[in-house]
């Protein structure tokens, strides 16, 4: 029974990811005084891309064709690990938070390889940039997540979330820092505005888009879907780690429905905040990104330190 709910939850997660991307686009368009495309436009785009025939360069190796499937699978597996509407599911008991970060790294590794594989200038450039950024972002993310796991004294994500839920509302300085660090990392990792512009048409400023420049058809659809999943993963991670209230603790129908309602509200709130931030901030120069991520790392480190200094037993 639990496994069925876990599979249903993952399916729901995957099905809702394009909708979230559409909603994000909707918020941004409204803030910039433009008319927004329909909320279901990402689904239509994905459908259209899957129907088209992929064009593959004759220099491409098997890696180029395999990479989209690998990336998409890694993201779906990551989605199954993160507690979405209910905690204590068997899938999240199988894997802990380090595995989750590992899934992200795995997907990124293959994406960077695929960018290099085709041998175009932009692909290699995008891969090198992506690896630079992720080498700075990944320790920060681990640091922020370790703050949580040290508090809960378990690396299991659903166990940690349950711990936060059960001890009620406690204001922890370390969580404030970890929240900010994770927000900054999420913006960098999902390629949102101050770091990377997902809607750019300028090859020289691209990071994520440069790597997937050569993809078309169903391969492109899979990669787009994977990055929408990644965006939603970060959103769910942030809202459920730091504000877990409302997540379903038993598998009754009403608890699950309430959990779905609450997580939708949290994601909508997060999207609106992010849309405001993206509208207000201009894209950074590439060489400023390491300062930005250095600041994020500082926040993560401060979170860890204040957990040790301010909160521990003496």
């Amino acid at each position, binding site marked *: 029974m639990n496994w069925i709910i876990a599979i249903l939850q993952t399916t729901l997660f995957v099905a809702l990811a394009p909708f979230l991307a559409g909603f994000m686009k909707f918020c941004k368009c409204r803030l910039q005084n433009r008319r927004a495309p329909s909320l279901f436009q990402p689904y239509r785009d994905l459908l259209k891309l899957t129907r088209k025939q992929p064009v593959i360069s004759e220099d491409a190796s098997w890696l180029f064709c395999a990479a989209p499937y690998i990336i998409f699978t890694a993201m779906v597996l990551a989605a199954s690990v993160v507690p979405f509407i209910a905690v204590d599911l068997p899938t999240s008991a199988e894997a802990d938070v380090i595995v989750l970060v590992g899934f992200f790294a795995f997907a990124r590794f293959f994406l960077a390889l695929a960018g290099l594989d085709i041998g175009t200038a932009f692909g290699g450039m995008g891969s090198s940039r992506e690896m630079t950024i992720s080498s700075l972002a990944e320790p920060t993310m681990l640091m922020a997540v370790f703050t949580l796991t040290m508090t809960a004294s378990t690396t299991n994500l659903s166990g940690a979330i349950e711990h936060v839920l059960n*001890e009620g*509302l*406690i*204001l*922890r*300085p*370390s969580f*404030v*820092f970890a929240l900010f660090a994770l927000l900054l990392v999420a913006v960098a990792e999902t390629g949102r505005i101050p770091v990377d512009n997902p809607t750019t048409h300028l090859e020289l400023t691209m990071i994520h888009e440069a790597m997937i420049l050569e993809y078309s058809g169903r391969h492109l659809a899979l990669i787009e879907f994977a990055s929408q999943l990644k965006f939603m993963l970060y959103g769910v991670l942030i809202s459920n780690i730091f504000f877990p209230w409302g997540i379903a603790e038993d598998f009754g129908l009403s608890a699950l429905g309430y959990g779905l309602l609450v997580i939708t509200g949290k994601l909508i709130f997060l999207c609106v905040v992010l849309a405001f931030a993206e509208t207000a901030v201009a894209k950074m120069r590439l060489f400023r990104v390491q300062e930005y991520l250095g600041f994020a790392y*500082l*926040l993560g480190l*401060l979170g860890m330190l*204040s957990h040790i*200094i*301010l*909160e*521990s*037993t*003496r």
Partner: protein
Amino acid sequence: MNIESQDFYTQAILSMSALVGLTSFLMLGQGRLLRLIFVFAIQGLLLTLTTSLAAFSLDNPHLYISAVLTFALKVIFIPWMLQKQVLAMNLHRDVEALKNNTAVMLGGASLMVFSYYVLQPIIHTSSMIMLNALAVSLSVVLLGLMLMISHRQAVAHVVGFMSIENGLFFAAIVATNGMPMVVELGVAFDVLVAAILFGIFFLHIRTSIDSLDVDMMNKLHEVDK
């Protein structure tokens, strides 16, 4: 003494002290004057929140007056005045190239450790929250001094000076649940007068050495070196 066993007020004060410490570090590493002033205003806002929190949970109504004063002076008036002067003297486009920024930041971190070390004996006589909050406010004072040493612009020196005062104010709220009203009013007006005097000083420094960069004061030597 875990944080779980503390009451909500203590947790909130600890969070505030962590954030106040963070703003001090942000100021230390900031090369742009306008952003420096903005971070200073945020620190003032955190102080206001702490004061109103103390007033609310300790049921000490005169602290509300002090919170309002802090808000009016440190969040609105002084930042607004400094910003106006920076804009008037056309300094907002300069990015101060901080010499050995990394060393300064590391120095700041070691100052924080130092303040914990200095205050370690207090732990036997008072609660844990007192140690943490006092250590943070002592390090805010020391970081303010560090800011004055490491930056070259006179405006940054003023911000450093004001943040020293912020550190003392934070310590006063947390340790003694607010000073007597007379003292607070006195300090508030001192700060106000200091801010205005600094404005006059800026004008004088500027007319005598054509810049607010204190390194240029060497020009005032009688003999050329």
